[in-house]
């Protein structure tokens, strides 16, 4: 074999050691498969044998599903309200009644002075206060404009925005009813010559919310939760298994063993990958069952795209592990990576609200595409015919990260 030949061979398979040095281990496909399989089994035993870790791998996704699934809600209901009714008349009671009937407010206290409201808002015991002045009914009766004071704790902006809209609508509705009854009374007093009838326009909106008609934020968040859990697990787990060998110093032993680097990486990653798939298979039906969210799309498409996404996630984990030499570095780097991925994915914070530059950055985030896929499949029931463009970037990123990891490993070890 000439030098030229050898070099060509090295170039064509940059991740395997020169063949000539390793005649004993063989380089055929079946031998390769054998070696990877043994490594996978060894790795499996190592993960499962440690009881603490095994319990963690089982319990962590479950716990995450419970906490994530039931805590992430942005619905606005049962807003704690205090009332100061200085009028105590039939009209003022009617106003308070219409707030209660709306179903969005629960009155937690009736106070007798405006000043008493302050500590409630200050200590966050109440979110809203309704203040009705003493001359409320008198003004309404006299045909003048009466006022109602509404104080809203603006700290939680979503609740505050929604609550102020509700309050406005409720008072508008109340106002409208009085106006209509007044006009009705007037109809009889008018001369026919001026106007045959008073015309009072009435408007109504027929809003219909699609895909999630009850506007449950549960349906918005739960599909995303499944994705977050497997993403976090696969990155952290994949990066930890390789860095661990480096930190303890057993990586040298593996390096001198008759296996190529790509076999080593695969042998280390495949068990993690299998664990992720098992987790996914367990957690998806569980999420559907626990939170009663719909699954309207194709199961096959969901799992196929999940596997593709998991490959990308494992690639990220491998890249991190190539960079880091201690587990502390690995976990901090994973965290540094996971945080922006989750926050810039549209899981909780809408991408449309982000500044333009950041919106471009989100295109680099594989989670962004996968969240769109998962929500589409779960809630909208759309399939590959609409979602295929989302798969392409995930696919490309899988290649980039795995390639990067392989390259970094080669450089490190040589």
């Amino acid at each position, binding site marked *: 074999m000439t030098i030229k030949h050898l070099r060509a061979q090295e170039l064509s398979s940059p991740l395997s050691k020169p063949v000539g040095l390793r005649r004993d281990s063989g380089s055929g496909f079946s031998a390769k498969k054998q070696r990877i399989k043994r490594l996978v089994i060894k790795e499996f035993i190592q993960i499962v044998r440690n009881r603490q870790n095994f319990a963690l791998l089982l319990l962590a996704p479950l716990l995450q599903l419970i906490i994530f699934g039931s805590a992430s809600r942005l619905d606005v209901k049962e807003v704690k309200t205090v009332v100061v009714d200085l009028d105590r008349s039939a009209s003022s009671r009617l106003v308070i009644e219409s707030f209660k009937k709306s179903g969005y407010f629960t009155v937690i206290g009736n106070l007798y002075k405006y000043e008493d409201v302050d500590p409630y808002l200050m200590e966050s015991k109440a979110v809203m206060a309704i203040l009705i002045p003493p001359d409320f009914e008198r003004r309404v009766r006299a045909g003048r404009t009466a006022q109602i004071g509404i104080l*809203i704790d603006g700290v939680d902006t979503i609740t505050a925005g929604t609550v102020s809209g509700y309050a406005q609508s409720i008072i508008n509705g109340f106002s*409208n009813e009085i106006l209509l009854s007044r006009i009705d009374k007037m109809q009889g007093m008018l001369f026919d010559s001026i106007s045959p009838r008073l015309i009072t326009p009435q408007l109504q909106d027929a809003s219909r919310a699609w895909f999630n008609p009850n506007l449950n934020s549960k349906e918005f968040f739960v599909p995303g939760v499944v994705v977050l859990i497997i993403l976090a697990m696969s990155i952290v787990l994949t990066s930890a298994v390789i860095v661990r060998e480096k930190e303890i110093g057993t990586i040298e032993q593996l390096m001198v063993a008759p296996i190529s680097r790509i076999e080593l990486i695969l042998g280390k990653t495949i068990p993690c990958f299998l664990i992720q798939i098992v987790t996914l298979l367990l957690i998806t039906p569980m999420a559907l069952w626990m939170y009663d969210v719909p699954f309207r799309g194709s199961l096959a498409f969901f799992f196929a795209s999940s596997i593709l996404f998991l490959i990308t996630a494992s690639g990220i984990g491998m890249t991190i592990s190539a960079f880091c030499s201690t587990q502390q570095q690995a976990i901090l780097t994973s965290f540094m990576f996971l945080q922006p991925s989750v926050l810039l994915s549209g899981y909780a914070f809408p991408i*449309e609200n982000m500044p333009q530059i950041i919106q471009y950055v989100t295109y680099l985030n594989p989670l962004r595409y996968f969240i769109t896929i998962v929500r589409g499949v779960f809630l909208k029931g759309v399939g590959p015919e609409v979602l295929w463009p989302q798969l392409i970037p995930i696919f490309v990123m899988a290649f980039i990260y795995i390639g990067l990891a392989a390259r970094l490993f080669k450089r490190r070890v040589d």
Partner: protein
Amino acid sequence: MNLARTIAVARKETRQIVRDSRSLFLALGIPVMLMILFGYALSLDVDNIPIAVWDQDLSPQSREFLDRMTSSSYFKTALVTQSYSEIVSAIDSNYCSVGIIIPYDFSENLKKGKQTFVQALVDGSDSTRAGLAIVYLETILGTFELDFKNEALTRQSVAARVSLPVEPRIKLMYNPELQSRNNIIPGLIAIIMMVIAALLTSLTIVREKETGTLEQLISTPVKSNELIVGKLIPYFVLGYVDLLLVYLMGQYVFQVPFRGNLLIMFIVSSIFLIGALSVGFLISVIAKNQFFATQLALLGTFLPTFLLSGFVFPISNMPYVLQIVTYIVPARQLITILRAIYLKGAGIEAIIFPTLLLVVFGFFVTTVAVLKLKKRLM
């Protein structure tokens, strides 16, 4: 407790932190990254909702109604169309969140005083957005209706006898522009301190275990309380640097109003930090390997801190059992306190109860950690 031995442990730990420059960089970089993300990139404010419009009526009235919708900055017209199916596909592809259809008899019915409808199709998959869109829409419709009514009455020359019966005066307290940044940044202080403190300290003991240096430590005359104090001092300093960093960024980069007492904030934050460090330390004592420790730290501190503290998701929305659980999440207490100090200018009397809970939590966790470590060192 021997001061010299404690300092010796602290010095050794400091050297270890400083030498691992990458971890140190990450410990300071993660807070800055989170601040930039939350302060600059993320917002839960719902405005400029893209709408698709099909105006079948094309009358001055329908145009005025649409003008009112888009001039409110809540909505912006992204698509004007003449067909139902185009609206459907615009919503399907996330191009628009709301479709508005004004029927051909809109202005006619308005003039005749008959009931008329505006149809709105809302993408409900993002429920917050959809809910707010509907609230905005109803409010705009309500005022449009009232104004039109008044106008009609004026034309019929009876307006002088009819005035608006009830007018709401709505005042948004503490955060009148409803800037979500003002809400999130005080909360972020708690998140950052918890994560950094617990993630870093969760490895202190277990690392010695895994690399085999714990036996050497045991053979020295150092006692368990000296070990815990000595090991935590450098992380306390690091956590405090993070706190200062986040506070200064909030003040000068994002201009979050600070209405309360600075000293109270720093004192309460220190109490919290001691508790957070002890949680990490306790994890480190329990764990058999570093993988378990980091996972437990993420699961036991980051997750509840992020989700069960009221940071983004209101506690009042959670199931009742979970609401009770939130009381043992120290970040819940700190976030309540920080928001009260930052935005409401609350004094010590308004925050005394959550502060007491923080003290109890810190004391309890530290004691358990010392006891567990004692057992290990024996």
